C-alpha cells in the first residue's frame, strides 16, 4: 500500500515537473529520463545478492550489464548534448 502511494505521487510529480520543459530541450530530456530508468542497476545488485545457482548468476550478469550500459551511456550522451547548449560567450572553440 505504501509502495502504491509512492508510485502514484511520483507519477503526479513527473507530470508536473516535465510539462514545463521547452521543445528545445525535449531530446536531452528524453535522454535524461532514459538515463534515470537505468536505476534498475539497483535491482541488478539486489538480485545478484539473492542468486545462489548458475541461472541466478547468469540472470544477474545480464541484468547488470544491460542496466550499467543504460545508466552510463544515458548520462554520458545527455551530457554531450547539453554541453552544446551554451551561451555564445561561453564558447571557446
Amino acid at each position, binding site marked *: 500500500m505504501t*509502495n502504491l502511494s*509512492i*508510485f502514484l505521487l*511520483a*507519477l503526479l*510529480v*513527473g*507530470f508536473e515537473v*516535465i510539462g*514545463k520543459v521547452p*521543445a*528545445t*530541450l*525535449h*531530446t*536531452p*530530456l528524453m535522454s*535524461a*529520463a*532514459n*538515463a*534515470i*530508468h*537505468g*536505476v*534498475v542497476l*539497483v*535491482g*541488478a*545488485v*539486489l*538480485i*545478484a*545478492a539473492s*542468486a545462489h545457482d548458475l541461472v*541466478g*548468476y*547468469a*540472470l*544477474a550478469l545480464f*541484468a*547488470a*550489464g*544491460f*542496466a*550499467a550500459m*543504460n*545508466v*552510463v*551511456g*544515458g*548520462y*554520458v550522451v545527455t*551530457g*554531450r*548534448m*547539453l*554541453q*552544446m*547548449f551554451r551561451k555564445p560567450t561561453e564558447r571557446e572553440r
Partner: protein
Amino acid sequence: MSTVDTAVRLTYLAAAACFVLGLHLMNSPVRARRGNQLSAAGMAAAVVATLVLVIDAGAITATGWTFLGAGAGAGALAGWYTARTVRMTAMPQLVSLFNAVGGGAAAIVAVHEFTRLAAPVPARVAVPTVLDVLIGALTFAGSLVASGKLQGLVPSGPVVFTGGRVLTAGLSIVAVCAGVVSATGRGGMAALAVLLLAALALGVVGVLPIGGADMPVVISLLNAFTGTAVAMAGFVLDNSVLIVAGALVGASGTILTVLMAQAMNRSIVSIVAGGFGTGDSPAAAAAAAGAGVRAVSADDAAIQLAYASRVVIVPGYGLAAAQAQHAVHELAQLLAGHGVAVSYAIHPVAGRMPGHMNVLLAEANVPYPQMKELDEANAELSHADVALVVGANDVTNPAARRPGNPISGMPILDVDAARSVIVIKRSTGHGYAGIDNELYTNPKTGMLFADAKAGLGALVAGVKTLVG
C-alpha cells in the same frame, strides 16, 4: 530497522529528490547541465547505498560479485564508449538502444524473482512481476526494432504483411492468458516463459508496421514503458528508489509522447496502428522538376541572400542526413557578418525527435537564442526577405491549412509568408506524408536542386564572391 537500513532508505530518498530536481532544472538550457549532473549524482548515491546494503547483509557470494562486476563493467564500458563516439545525427537510435537494454534489465529482474518465489505468491508481488516481464520484454524487443529501423538495419518503411493484425491480436491474447495464469500463482516457469516469448514477439510485430517518420513517437512511448517496467521491478523487490524513478520516467515519457504526436497532428492510436509513412527513401523524384517549378542557380540564390536584410533558415531532416549543420552555420555567419539578420525557424518535429534539430545546430555552435520555435518563427517569416528551406518538406507545405489531405491541420511553418523562398532539395520528391508540396510550385519559390551540403557549400562560395 538497523542503522544501515535507515541510512540506505534516507539515501534513496535523497536520490529520488535529485532525480526530480534534475529533471526540473532541465526547464532551461542554462541550468540543464547542472540538472543532468545532479541526477547522475543521485544515481551514483543510490547504487553505492545498495552496494553498502548487500555488503552489510553479507548476502552476496564471491561468485555473485564476479558475475555482477563482470556484467556491470562490460555494460558500463559499452555504454560509455558508444555514448562518446556516436554521431549526433545517430543519437535517436542510440537512445532507443539504451532504452531497450533498460527494459531488458527490468524484465530479467522480474524473471529472477519469479524463480525464487515459493507458492503461494501474494498478489502484491505476483501482479507486478507479470507486468514487469510483459512490459520489459515488449520494450526490449520493440526498442531494438525501432533502433534498427533508424539505423537502416531494418526496413524503415512500414512492414505490413497479411495476417499481421491477426497475429498481433493472437499474441496479445496469449500474453494476457499466460499473464493471468502466472499472476494467480499457477503454471510455474512454463507460463512465465510463454508470457516472455509472447511479449518479445509483440514488441517486434508491434513496431515493424510503423513507418520511420513515426519512430520518434514510438521511442518516446517505449521510454515511458521502460519507466513503468522499472517501477514494477521496484514493487517486486520492495525498493522505493526504483518505484520513484520508474514512475517519473513513465510520466515524462507519456507527456513527451503526447507533445510529439500533437506536433505531428497524429493520434497516438493511429501511430501505433501503423502503416503510415514511407520512411526515409524520398519517393524518387515523383514529379521531377515538373511544370510550374522554377529552378534557380546557386549564384542567383546567393545574390538574393546577400542583398536581403532578413533571412530565416528553415532546417529539416535532409540537413541532418547530409551532415550539413556546420555548412549552414558557416553560411549564416557569413551573412550575419555582412549585416543580414539571420535566424533559424525550427519546427517541433524537425529532425528525428522533438528538439533534435536544436541539438544538431547547437553542435555546429549556433547560439540557441537564434533558434525560433513555431509561433516566434512564423512572426519572423512574415517579414523576412528570404526564407531558405534546407531539407524540410511536409512541415512547410501550405496544403496543411486545407482539409482533406494527410497533413491537414498539422501546424506548419508559414514559409510562403516570406517575400521570397529558396528551397535546397535534391528533387521535388515527396516527404513522409507522400504528397506534393505546394510550396514548390509557388511563383515566389526558387528551387536549388542539390544535396543539402553541396547546395550550402555553393551558396557560401557564391556569397563570398559578392561580399568578400
